[in-house]
C-alpha cells in the first residue's frame, strides 16, 4: 500500500494486494482483463485496480438478481444483524481504512479517522432500521368498508449505485447501506479515482455474513459502466448520487426510463458527515398494499 521507494537489505518488502472486483461473493478480475492505475492525491502510484467492463456489469447484475430472493426474504431482524456485523468487522479494520482513506482522499489522519468512525456508526444506524422501517412507512389503512387493509414496504429489487467520487468510504457506505438494509441487492460502481477503500470494504462484506451477490462492487469508470447499468432491463432502480457530470446524469436517467427504473438523481455535493434521513431507504422501497375482507 504505502509506496516503497526502495528495498534496503534490512527492510522487508511489502506484500502488495491485488485489487479486484467483488461479484457474487467472489473476487474476480475484470473479464476484460483491463486495469487502471490508482494514484494517491499527490499522484504517486498506489495500485492497479480492475477496470470493470459492461460484461462485468452484466455479471454483477446476474449475481445481484440471484441473491435478491434470498436476501429480501430474510427476516428484517436478520438483515439488521448482518449490517451490524459489517460494522463490527469494519471497526476491527479501522486502521487499514484510515490509511486508505488518507491516501485516497488526501485528508488528514484525523479527518480520515472521523470518516471511518462515521462509516462504522452509519452502518450501525442503518442496521437498526432493518426492523423498524416497515413500521414507520407501513401500517394499517382505515378503508371505508369491511376490509382489513395494510401497506408494507417491499424492496425494489436490484439497485445500481454510482457511488460518490470524493468520499471514498463514508460516501460509499452511506449509499450502499440504505439500499441493502431493506432487502435490495446492489451493483455499486465505486469512485473512479479513489477505489481502494471500496475494495477493502468488499473484503469486509465477504467476511461479515453478507450473502454473496447482495453487494457487488465494480471499480472503474461510472461513465463507461453506468450506461450499461442504467439501460439494463433487469435492474429495478439506480442511484446516481455520485454522478458529477450533469449531462451524464441526464442520459443515465433517460436510459433508466426504458424500464421505469426508480432513479435517485445526482447529488455529488452531499456532505456525508451529516446525519442522513430515511429517504435513501424509501427511494428503493415499493409500497405493497394488501386487502382482505373481514367476515365470519
Amino acid at each position, binding site marked *: 500500500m504505502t509506496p516503497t521507494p526502495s528495498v534496503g537489505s534490512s527492510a522487508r518488502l511489502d506484500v502488495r494486494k491485488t485489487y479486484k472486483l467483488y461479484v457474487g461473493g467472489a473476487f474476480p478480475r475484470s473479464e476484460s482483463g483491463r486495469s487502471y492505475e490508482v494514484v494517491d492525491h499527490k499522484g504517486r502510484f498506489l495500485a492497479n485496480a480492475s477496470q470493470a467492463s459492461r460484461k462485468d456489469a452484466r455479471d454483477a447484475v446476474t449475481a445481484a438478481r440471484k441473491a435478491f430472493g434470498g436476501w429480501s426474504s430474510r427476516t428484517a431482524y436478520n438483515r439488521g444483524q448482518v449490517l451490524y456485523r459489517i460494522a463490527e468487522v469494519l471497526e476491527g479494520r479501522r486502521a487499514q481504512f484510515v490509511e486508505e482513506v488518507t491516501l485516497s482522499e488526501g485528508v488528514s489522519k484525523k479527518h480520515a479517522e472521523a470518516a471511518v468512525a462515521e462509516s462504522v456508526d452509519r452502518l450501525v444506524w442503518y442496521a437498526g432500521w432493518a426492523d423498524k422501517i416497515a413500521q414507520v412507512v407501513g401500517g394499517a389503512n382505515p378503508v371505508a*368498508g*369491511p*376490509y382489513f387493509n395494510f401497506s408494507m414496504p417491499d424492496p425494489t429489487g436490484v439497485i445500481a449505485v454510482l457511488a460518490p467520487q470524493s468520499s471514498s468510504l463514508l460516501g460509499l457506505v452511506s449509499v450502499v447501506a440504505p439500499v441493502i438494509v431493506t432487502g435490495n441487492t446492489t451493483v455499486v460502481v465505486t469512485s473512479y479515482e479513489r477505489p481502494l477503500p471500496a475494495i477493502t470494504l468488499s473484503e469486509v462484506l465477504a467476511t461479515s455474513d453478507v450473502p454473496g451477490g447482495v453487494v457487488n462492487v465494480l471499480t472503474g469508470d461510472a461513465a463507461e459502466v453506468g450506461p450499461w447499468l442504467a439501460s439494463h432491463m433487469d435492474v429495478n432502480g439506480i442511484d446516481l448520487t455520485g454522478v458529477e457530470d450533469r449531462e451524464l446524469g441526464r442520459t443515465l436517467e433517460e436510459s433508466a426510463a426504458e424500464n421505469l427504473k426508480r432513479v435517485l438523481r445526482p447529488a455529488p455535493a452531499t456532505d456525508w458527515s451529516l446525519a442522513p434521513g430515511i429517504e435513501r431507504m424509501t427511494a428503493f422501497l415499493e409500497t405493497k398494499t394488501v386487502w382482505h*375482507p*373481514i*367476515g*365470519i
Partner: protein
Amino acid sequence: MTTVVSPGKGAGSGELAEATSSNSSLRRFLHGLPGVDQVGAEARAAMLGTRSIKTTAKEFAIDLAIRMVDLTTLEGQDTPGKVRALSAKAMRPDPADPSCPQVAAVCVYPDMVAVAKETLGTSGVHVASVATAFPSGRAAMDIKLADTRDAVEAGADEIDMVIDRGAFLSGRYLEVYDEIVAVREACARPDGTAAHLKVIFETGELQTYDNVRRASWLAMMAGADFIKTSTGKVQPAATMPVTLVMLEAVRDFREATGQMVGVKPAGGIRTSKDAIKYLVMVNEVAGPDWLDPDWFRFGASTLLNDLLMQRTKMKTGRYSGPDYFTLD
C-alpha cells in the same frame, strides 16, 4: 306443484349417497363444499339490489311475487276466524280487481290446517303447515313426526319443518339428515302421494353463510322439496345474502343431480321493492327456471298488501293507500 314423491330424490346414488353413510363422511362432504366469503356474498346481493325494474318488467314481477306469496299467520292468538279471513284474502287478494292473481299458499299452524283447507277448497291455493315443534324444533322425534302426520292428515299440501339447529351446530349432521328423511316419510299420504316438504334452517341461528350452504346441501340430499330461510320468529330472518347462498346451492344441486329444489325466504320481506330485488336475484343467480311459485316462495304477511298497492299504482297511475286494501 308436483305431489308425487320422486323415488330418485335427494341422495339417491353415487357420491352424495356415500356422503350420508356416516356422520363423519357427511361432515367431510359438507365441510368440503366451497366456502362463502361473507363480504363478497353481501356485495353481490347488494349489487343485484341496485337493478332498476320498471314498467312492464315491474308489472310482471309484482304479479309473479303475488303468486309466490305463502300468506302466513303463525301466532298464538290465531283463531279459525283469522285463518278463514286470511284464506279468503289468499284466493282474492284484491277484491276490486279480479285480474289480480291468487297467492301460492296459506301458511298456518297444524291445528288450523283443517280450517284453511275448508275455506280454500279447490281454489288451487295450497295449505302449508308448519310442523316438527315449530319454531324451536325442541321436541322428541316421535312428537315431531306426529305433528307432521297430523298436519298432513288434516289436509296440508305442504309441510314447513324446522331443523334441529342444536344438532346442526354441534356437528351431528347425520342426525339432522335422518330427521329430515323421517319427516319426509311422515309427509306421505295413504294414496301414495305426499305433502311437499319445506325445510327451515333458521339461518339467523346458523349465523354463517358457510353453515347456510352446508344446511342447504344437507336438506337437499335428504330430499327437501324446498329450502327455507327462517321461521320468522328469530332475527335476522330472510336476508338477500342468505337467500343468495341458498339460490347458489339449489343451482349447484341441480347441476350435480338434475333435480330442482325450491327456495323460500321467509320473514322480513315487507315491500314490493324488496320482493322485486329477490326476484332479480332468483333470475340472475338460480336462473329463470326458478321464477315460478313451484320453485320460489315468499313467506310473508304484510308484503301482500304492499304488492297490491304497487299493482294498483301501476294500473291506475296514482298512488294508493292502505285504506283501499283489506287487513286480514
